[in-house]
């Protein structure tokens, strides 16, 4: 069978010791940033991006992807032990994970979330393997109209399905699109909004933007937060074994979470955070006794953790098969591919089969590494959580400065990071999510390019977007999401929204999707 042949090819790529090492390094670093509250996957990936320049594109993308899904594993550790989510997608895990730890069930909670993460990731992976080739065949028929509508769908979904208000999300997307306009216009050669600063002629540096908005802004927010940190208790391996009853109670939520997460992650604009939040809401609805939730219900941690890992895998579907990133992390990942001279899109699978299938197989291997990293070595992560943040953040700032400098060997980029850090911090304080901004920034030039081309071909007739079936259905879906956002914004149960907002506020509001 063709599929088996492809997987075999992928396995051969990954079996190379150096690729295997980068895969391990990626998931290891991912776990570190996931465990530590305050540094997100997005900041970590942008920080590592300059280091991948001397690596092969396949190894680079395998390592960066490992950071992304590895962070989903580590994120639950701090949620359970400290009531502080390591990554935003683990914010809901605090709600029941921390009460479990207070009851002395921290070990069980950590074990169950690791297994749930593995099950979720594997289901997402299967979906990715089965559907990406088909979707990329559809993608080959895309013209500028379809690309425009698809990106519009991604942007609207990313902004309106986030936790906060839809208006705020839309503001961030449009602001991001406008920031993307800065630099030389490819059609006319005019330098737009560059204010005669030569460094701005090429636009804002992606690494500077991501590190400023996420890395620097998070450091500013977390400096004193960490002082209040309580120290986690030691967790022994023996305390991790769940009782049979507990184990049985986790099977169905795990499957439901995996299914929901796989599905949601594949939609452009929906990332692990939304998947975990929605799966928590569903568990609460189907539970016989919903009042247990918030007091240490085991379903309340299994379902969201399997959902966010499933979503982290299927988030690669639109990115790899069509070339349109579904969330901010994917956008940076595609930026990394472009820097390495590889054009993401429907052609990727046929032109770079080794990269594509190697990446897929590396997911399977990386997830197994993660279970090994997260169970026997739990003591290491608990110890890591004991390091005060105040010892670490000066290093983060210096690494950010040097990392961004190394992209172009230009000190201007460090000043740029400082300015973007201020903007990112102010947005964070005003409760704006920066992830849709980054997505808008990356898609901005592509969106404009495809709009211009489509309108040129149709001689200025906008009805072309509604006359072509794929484009029309994508726009219909976009419209439906907007209407749903408005409707749910009006009737949203205030209580749930507030509980989630509080959890998000404790989270590092960075990394992963929306």
């Amino acid at each position, binding site marked *: 069978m063709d599929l088996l042949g492809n997987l075999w090819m992928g396995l051969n790529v990954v079996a190379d010791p150096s690729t295997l090492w980068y895969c391990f390094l990626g998931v290891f670093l991912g776990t570190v940033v996931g465990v530590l509250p305050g540094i997100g996957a997005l900041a970590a990936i942008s920080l590592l991006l300059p280091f991948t320049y001397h690596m092969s594109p396949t190894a680079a993308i395998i390592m960066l992807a490992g950071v992304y899904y590895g962070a989903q594993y580590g994120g639950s550790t701090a949620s359970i032990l400290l009531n502080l989510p390591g990554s935003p997608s683990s914010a809901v895990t605090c709600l029941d994970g921390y009460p479990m730890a207070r009851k002395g069930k921290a070990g069980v909670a950590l074990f169950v979330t690791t297994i749930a993460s593995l099950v979720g990731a594997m289901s997402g992976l299967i979906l990715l393997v089965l559907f990406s080739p088909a979707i990329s065949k559809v993608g080959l028929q895309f013209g500028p109209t379809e690309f425009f509508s698809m990106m519009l769908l991604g942007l609207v979904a990313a902004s309106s399905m986030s936790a906060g208000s839809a208006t705020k999300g839309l503001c961030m997307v449009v602001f991001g699109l406008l920031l993307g*306009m800065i630099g030389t216009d490819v059609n*006319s050669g005019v330098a737009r909004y560059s204010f005669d600063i030569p460094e701005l002629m090429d636009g804002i540096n992606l690494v500077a933007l991501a590190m400023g908005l996420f890395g620097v802004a998070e450091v500013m927010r977390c400096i004193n937060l960490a002082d209040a940190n309580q120290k986690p208790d030691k967790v022994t391996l023996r305390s991790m074994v769940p009782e049979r009853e507990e184990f049985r109670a986790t099977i169905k939520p795990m499957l439901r979470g995996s299914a929901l997460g796989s599905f949601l992650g594949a939609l452009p604009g929906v990332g692990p955070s939304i998947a975990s939040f929605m799966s928590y809401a569903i568990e609460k609805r189907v539970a016989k006794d919903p009042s247990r939730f918030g007091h240490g219900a085991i379903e309340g941690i299994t379902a969201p953790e399997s959902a966010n890992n499933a979503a982290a895998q299927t988030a690669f579907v639109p990115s790899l098969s069509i070339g349109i990133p579904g969330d901010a992390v994917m956008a940076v990942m595609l930026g990394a591919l472009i820097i390495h001279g590889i054009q993401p899109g429907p052609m990727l699978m046929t032109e770079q089969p080794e990269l594509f299938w190697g990446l897929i197989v590396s997911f399977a291997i990386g997830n197994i590494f993660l279970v090994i990293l997260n169970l026997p070595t739990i003591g290491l992560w608990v110890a890591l959580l004991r390091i005060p943040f105040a*010892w670490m953040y*000066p290093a983060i700032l*210096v690494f950010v400065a*040097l990392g961004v*400098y190394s992209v172009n060997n230009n000190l201007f980029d460090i000043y740029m990071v400082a300015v973007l850090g201020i903007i990112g911090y102010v947005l964070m304080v005003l409760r704006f999510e920066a992830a849709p901004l980054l997505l808008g920034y990356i898609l901005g030039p592509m969106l404009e390019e495809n709009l211009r081309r489509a309108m040129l071909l149709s001689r200025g007739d906008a009805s072309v977007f509604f006359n072509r079936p794929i484009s029309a259905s994508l726009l219909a879906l976009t419209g439906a999401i907007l209407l749903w956002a408005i409707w749910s914004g009006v009737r949203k149960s205030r209580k749930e929204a507030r509980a989630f907002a509080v959890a998000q506020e404790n989270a590092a509001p960075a990394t992963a999707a929306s």
Partner: protein
Amino acid sequence: MKMTRDIHDIVGGLLMSAAGLFFALYGREYNFGSADRMGPGYFPVVLGWLLFGLGLLLAIPAWWRQGSPIVLQWGNLFWSVASLLAFALLLYPLGVALAALAASLVALIATKMALRTRILVSLAVAALTTVIFPIGLRMTLPIWP
């Protein structure tokens, strides 16, 4: 209880509107073109007005909504930025090791810490940075002045 308006959304919305207005007005410098042949000004000007409108849509209803006051940690903001600037300014005259040491000491002003710990942490940062970047990754950077 004294009512606080939803100041987050008011300020945020107005800032967004201002940014939108800026992009829309400044974008008039570029050729606007027409729908079938869009000039470089077309897309940014339209988006600028869109952002202006969205900002107002956010700010106006917030006036009648209850909210909490904005908490801005000025010290963290100031010293983190100062640390980045110090590093950028000192990198070439002083080299990586001393620039990292200085940047770390500046960053640590934002937090409470014993003087000895401050110095030890900063020395560790300087050592790590020097080992990782110019030595480990062979970046061409001056290590010493």
